[in-house]
């Protein structure tokens, strides 16, 4: 049984702020031994300050690495771990100097989902690749995944 946190964050602005702070705290934990990096947050807006839809709930970017992280949080729909991830390009084709390769993680917040997200973000912020095992068309599960986690990667049209 998975315990989801902040289940009503979309309906409660105080809860929403606590969720934002939760992800900032997780991010700071990931980055605490990586002080020489140029990663900064936030990177992406929801569209308006009063639009608290979790899309995204957290984002960060490194101009030198041309990489970004975008976390989208949704309300839980089951008592299982709910997390999907994919990579995409923002603002141009792969060889475009302005293009940012992003890791997108969409999840319902639970300890397991957050730990799994952190396990993907850690190597990503260092510029490393993330290993995925293909399961079927369009769905890919990473090596350290377990049964309830699904990670997929969209084949980006911008990729070389």
């Amino acid at each position, binding site marked *: 049984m998975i315990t989801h946190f902040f289940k009503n964050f979309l309906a409660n602005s105080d809860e929403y702020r606590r969720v934002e702070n939760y992800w900032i705290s997780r991010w700071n934990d990931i980055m605490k031994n990586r002080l020489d990096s140029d990663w900064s947050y*936030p*990177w*992406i*807006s*929801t*569209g*308006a*300050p*009063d*639009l608290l*839809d*979790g*899309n*995204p709930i957290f984002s960060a970017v490194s101009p030198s690495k041309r990489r970004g992280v*975008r976390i*989208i949080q*949704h309300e839980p*729909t089951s008592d299982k771990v*709910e997390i*999907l991830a*994919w990579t*995409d390009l*923002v*603002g141009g084709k792969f060889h475009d100097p302005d293009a940012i390769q992003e890791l*997108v993680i*969409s999840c*319902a917040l639970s300890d397991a989902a957050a730990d799994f997200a952190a396990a993907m973000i850690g190597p990503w912020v260092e510029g490393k690749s993330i290993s995925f095992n293909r399961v079927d*068309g*369009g*769905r890919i599960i990473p090596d350290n995944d377990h049964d309830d986690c*699904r990670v*997929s*990667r*969209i*084949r*980006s*049209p911008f990729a070389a």
Partner: protein
Amino acid sequence: MDHRGVIQAQGGSVYASKGWDQESPLLASTGYAHLDSLKEEIGQRETELRVEGFRQAKTFIDRMIARGGSETAPPIIRKSYPQPPNKKGRIVDIDIFYGKAFIP
């Protein structure tokens, strides 16, 4: 140009996009038209796989109209729909890179 962005459908070996790069903010009506054009371009089957994504993208535009348009980018505004994502990776994205969009 001062106002630039793109609406795109991707996933499942499909990629289609409708972009804008213009001197004035994108009208919401043009945003709706872009969604309709994307549906037409990817065809009925792929549209059906993105029904919820298109619905949520339209709702986002509705919400921007209600407040007089999006905030001015940067920071980038980037939305991926549907949320929660469908397991087949069919996605509709709305990106606003510069300026404002979806004004009434």
